[in-house]
């Protein structure tokens, strides 16, 4: 070197990311206790006067949450302890109190038909949720990588990739139900008449039913993942890639050691929203199998459709409410697994 001395050692991409994160945590100085922080957040002075404006602004949203979420949730929990069947339907919350009988009927009663139905539906819900979210994330990630590149027609491609998201979920179920039809459906037409494969699968019967409900849901959901991940990609500093390129990192190495680690927090959020939405997903399965028996079969019945069938079809809303509480616990379980997997990414820096 002209200046003499030793050149500082070049950092690896991983070290650069760590350095970048450290800079971010030390960048913002803590506010001085005597510094005012702006309108609406007056520091507690010696007179302990607290402005009420933020609470006033939050009040409508809080009231809405109370009315639309918390009160119905509490009513639902109470309904789960009532014998709210057809004989007591009009009494509503005045129906006889039965404690945890509805829960034991769903989970442990040997003569209850719901026990097997619940376990089957719970299994299907877990498989469906995991498959849909992993596939939506993967497809969304690939699509995000595509639309963040600069190429001719990128705007059109992005619009086309967003189209499935605007199709209402009940339309997705009906549409794909026709597409999966064994003789008149387009999927089997492509397999048999275009690709000349010697198959005519019955997609809506047996274990293939799971495939038949996962694929349309992924088709409908991946644009949301794509959008969030593309926003995340835009936030990754370009100098990380430049430094890695200079060091001779391949595309795969840049993807694996820069892109994916930097996107983990975004992926965590995408997966969280996806898990909750998919556990409670109803429309696609219900409308795909809504004709006739309305029963998606051993491999298609999910907890929401099972609860709907046994509440409205059996006129037994107490049992349905109990099963709904158990569904909520299934969701909590999956979110707990999510938290264990992403706890490091969620930690404040």
């Amino acid at each position, binding site marked *: 070197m002209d200046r003499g001395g030793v050149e500082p050692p070049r950092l690896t991409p991983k070290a650069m990311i760590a350095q970048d994160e450290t800079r971010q945590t030390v960048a913002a100085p803590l506010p001085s206790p005597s510094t005012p922080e702006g309108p609406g957040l007056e520091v507690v002075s010696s007179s302990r006067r607290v402005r009420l404006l933020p609470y006033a602004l939050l009040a409508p949203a809080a009231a809405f949450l109370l009315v639309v979420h918390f009160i119905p949730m509490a009513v639902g929990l109470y309904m789960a302890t009532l014998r709210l*069947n*057809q*004989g007591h*339907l*009009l009494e*509503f919350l005045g129906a006889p109190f039965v404690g945890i009988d509805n829960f034991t009927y769903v989970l442990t009663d040997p*003569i*209850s*038909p*719901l026990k097997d139905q619940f376990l089957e539906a719970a299994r299907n819900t877990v498989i469906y949720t995991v498959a849909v979210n992993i596939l939506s994330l993967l497809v969304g990630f690939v699509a995000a990588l595509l639309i963040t590149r600069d190429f001719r027609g990128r705007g059109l491609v992005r619009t086309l990739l967003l189209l499935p998201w605007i199709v209402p979920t009940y339309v997705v179920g009906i549409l794909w139900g026709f597409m999966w*039809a*064994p*003789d008149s459906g387009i999927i089997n037409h492509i397999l048999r008449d275009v690709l000349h494969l010697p198959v*005519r699968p*019955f997609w*809506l*019967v*047996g274990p293939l039913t799971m495939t038949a409900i996962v694929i349309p849901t992924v088709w409908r959901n991946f644009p949301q993942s794509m959008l969030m991940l593309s926003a995340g990609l835009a936030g990754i500093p370009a100098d990380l890639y430049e430094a890695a390129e200079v060091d001779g990192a391949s595309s795969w190495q840049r993807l694996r050691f820069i892109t994916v680690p930097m996107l983990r927090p975004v992926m965590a959020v995408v997966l969280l929203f996806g898990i909750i939405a998919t556990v409670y997903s109803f429309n696609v399965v219900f409308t795909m199998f*809504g*004709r*006739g*028996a*309305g*029963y998606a*079969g*051993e491999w298609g019945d999910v907890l929401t459709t099972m609860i709907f*069938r*046994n509440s*409205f*079809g*059996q*006129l*037994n809303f107490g*049992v349905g409410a109990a099963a709904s509480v158990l569904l909520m616990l299934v969701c909590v379980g999956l979110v707990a697994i999510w938290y264990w997997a992403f706890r490091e990414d969620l930690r404040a820096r």
Partner: protein
Amino acid sequence: MSSLRRSMGTTALVALSALLVMACGNSPSGGSGNSATVGYATSQPKVKITFWYMPNGAAPNDYFKAEAAAFNAAHPNIEVEGTLVDWGDAFNKITTALTSGVGPDVTQLGTTWVGAFSKTGGLHPMSKGEVDGLGGSSAFVPGAWASSSLVGSGQTTAIPWFIDTRAIYYRADVLNRLGIDPATAFSTWDAMDQTLAKIKADGKVQAFGIPGKNAYDVVHNFAPWVWGAGGDYVNSDGTKSQIGSDASVDGVYQFESLASKYVDKAVLQKSNSEVEAAFGAGQFAVTTDGPWLAQQLQQPKAQGGYGDDVTAKAGFGTAPYPAGPKDHKVFFGGSNLAIMKSSKQEAAAYEWVRWLTNQGQPTYVSKVGMWPARGLSANASVFAADKYDTAFKNQLQFGKSYPMIAAWGPIETALVKDFGNLWDQVAQANGPVPRDTVKSDMSKAAQDVDAAIQQSK
């Protein structure tokens, strides 16, 4: 006094008189109002009532509008606003209306739902005067009147409107070509099996076509076979399931075997309307359906029918359902009309029910392709003229309906799921599902039915 004040005073006096008459004469809880005082006189104030109806016939909205217009001409002070509700949604929507108190004034109900909805207490119980105002119970076909109340309740909550039964439809040209006599081709289970076997062996057209689990009447399709074998779904008082008995299993096995042998598996996954369209297009030679299919096969495509298609042009016929080895029974269902207790216009709603089950019945019921529940209406010339109705008329004597018990709605939901499972097995099997498997499935169904009965108490 001005003419406006005079007319207002007159109106008030008439309204007050009407109110007094109604208060004295018409008790909603089975009181003794006589037939002369029930209903909503034409001198009463204008009101609007809401009516939920299901897809009856090829053009349900047009048929309703025509009937509402005719009713309005006779009752200018009552306007009827109709809403078409699909059969697949109807049970849930009516349940929601009963629980919320927000729903129609009058609703069409499947006969099999009368017990379940009556038990909730959300249907208006007809007074003696109101029943007499319809002509009394004797004016209706006895088998149909049995569906007007919950067993043991003593209260009439749903008036029979039309009867729905199923018969065999066949391609007359196919049977003719194969030398099969239509008069005996479907007379017994064995005869039907032999007929279908001949058509299959001929190879020119598929033998049989029926919907499987995607039928809206999954349970009704198995019923004649279960009964024909000497079995049943539940015992006579509806306290215990019978579907797991050997006789019932024989009936279920017979029907699923016929389907396995003669129905294309892709056809089994179609819905009712898809199967009807496929039969109209000539995809298979034999199917089972209600009298409305004959209507549709005679109506041109422009009116929603299949009259321009293969089967109509080649020629078709109808035959009564086959007799089983132990009994000969056909499913007897249909639709009733109920007034919701939450209705604010019960008198006007009653007038609409009276119209639909009397003056309006022959025209409407013949258009939608059903059979009238009112005895005298069946003599109307519009029913005698159609040769395809003969099979349905002849088998009315074999009609059997489900018991009108409170648990029937939940029982049917449970059976729909269990039969749906069986149809899935048929779709995946190579040949008929073995009798042992059917026995195991029906034992599970029996357990589900017993649980539904228990939970309904």
